[in-house]
């Protein structure tokens, strides 16, 4: 069953997109990430123009994150106050990101920046996460005691002004680091068509030192706000949101996210992190390494008339 997409102006296979949405939604619920970093490259590979893929994917990520964040809320695993602070930064970031993306498209360098961002961010985060999670899996197999959590918290996190209490995360820290983190993730959201969970989750654990239990839910909550805003901005500024594409993806996505969120409690956290690390690393390398190979066609047509 093929569908002609009104904005992307290509014809796509509807059951395939629903199945893809479900698969990515499952991963999204399982790991507490938006799943955009997986879906956007797949959409581009299927022939959807990159600008439309990035913008419509933000919409899909908002849907599957909503679906899973509600289950996390019931388990009291969302720090709404921290999520709100992150989202305030995220709003600024996505405003900036949509303008940056527009400017990069005019320069003809959007593809390059997208590929490089995938290579750098996914490559580095995937490698770090894999290293850390394999380490903890090995330690447990050997029966060693888990590495003691460093209680010395970084002074820059505590020395900064504008401190705020986050009772659910049991933190009393300055709002500056979460806001900056939010801005950064908002920019990524607009440029890469991702929610940014793969950056947020490790950053919340290792930089903000939030308790592991609330990290995933809070990350998803902030992602909903950032991607919703990105989606509206992309539609308003660039007219690149394809609602038919997003709807096809989210039909599968919201269901997959529910199943994934339930499945997540059956796995150990470090095993989940190792698996996610492998996926992140593979996508980053796949997207980025193409930049180093000699292209078979040296010319590229670009959408839009600058």
């Amino acid at each position: 069953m093929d569908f002609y997409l009104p904005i992307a102006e290509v014809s796509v296979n509807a059951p395939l997109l629903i199945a893809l949405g479900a698969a990515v939604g499952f991963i999204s619920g399982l790991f507490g990430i938006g799943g955009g970093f997986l879906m956007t490259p797949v959409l581009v590979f299927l022939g959807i123009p990159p600008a439309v893929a990035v913008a419509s994917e933000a919409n899909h990520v908002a849907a599957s994150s909503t679906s899973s964040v509600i289950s996390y809320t019931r388990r009291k695993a969302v720090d709404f106050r921290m999520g709100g602070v992150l989202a305030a930064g995220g709003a600024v970031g996505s405003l900036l990101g949509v303008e940056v993306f527009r400017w990069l498209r005019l320069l003809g360098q959007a593809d390059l920046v997208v590929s490089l961002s995938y290579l750098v961010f996914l490559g580095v985060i995937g490698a770090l996460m894999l290293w850390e999670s394999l380490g903890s899996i090995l330690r447990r197999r050997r029966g060693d005691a888990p590495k003691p959590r460093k209680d010395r918290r970084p002074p820059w996190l505590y020395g900064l002004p504008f401190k705020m209490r986050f009772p659910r995360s049991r933190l009393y820290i300055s709002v500056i680091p979460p806001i900056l983190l939010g801005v950064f993730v908002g920019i990524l959201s607009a440029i890469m068509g991702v929610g940014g969970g793969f950056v947020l989750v490790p950053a919340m654990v290792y930089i903000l030192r939030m308790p592991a239990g609330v990290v995933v839910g809070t990350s998803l909550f902030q992602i909903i706000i950032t991607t919703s805003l990105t989606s509206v901005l992309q539609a308003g500024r660039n007219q690149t949101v394809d609602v038919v594409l997003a709807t096809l993806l989210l039909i599968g996505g919201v269901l997959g996210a529910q199943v994934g969120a339930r499945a997540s409690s059956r796995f150990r956290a470090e095993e989940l992190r190792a698996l996610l690390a492998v996926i992140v690393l593979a996508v980053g390398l796949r997207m980025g390494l193409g930049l180093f190979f000699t292209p078979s066609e040296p010319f590229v047509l670009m959408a839009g008339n600058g």
Partner: protein
Amino acid sequence: MPLDAAPPQTPPAAVSAALTTTNVRVTSSFRGARIVLYGAVLDPSQKPSDVVVIVRGPDAPVRMARKTRIAGVWVNSRPVVFEGAPGFYMAASTRPLDEIASFSTLRRLGAGIDHLRINAPMEQRIESRYGVRDVVVSGLGADYLDWRRAVVRLKEASGLYAADSRGVSFVDKGLFKAEIDLPTGAPIGVYSADIFLFQDGQPVSSRTRGLTVEKAGVERALYLFAHQRPWSYGLASVAIALAAGWAASVAFRRN
């Protein structure tokens, strides 16, 4: 009977043609379209005739970049805009075009992909070189042909440009037909099909037929909504996303 009488007047050769469809509707099930053009050559003199069909879609500037290697990484050059390239172009004929007419005739009619008027891009700048002021430097220069060939190659790969030197076939005496294949990515707009009758290397008669490709139904409504009221469209699409996420989670809790 006057001796200097003109030879008996024969009506001039003429061609007539029609399209099976003049209005292609792009709906959600659109997967490209095949349109048949059929026509007749009316020529009492029975001279050997050739028919050339040229179909053009609406002009759309082509924006293109060339990948260059910088520090080991393949990077797009600055994009170059080609004006006047048709968004869709098809040339079909009874024989290879260069056997039908001369280079200059084909060039004048813009018949054949080699004769498309794709204008050299406005990539000129004026600068001082070797102490000489106001030298006009074309951004492309000698590379122009490479770029032009690339436009044609990429458009052919996506089915938007096509040339078929046997695309027009005579199905009966004086009756011919040609097929126009519109790919899914065919641009929206007004197309024109020019049908030329060639005799002795000259176009002796021609006809022009119009063709409209337009979005219809839901596709059209959504496209217009997205472009005319982009902010409401964005809010509506986010509302759908959030509602769907919420609905799924409610549905699963009941289970």
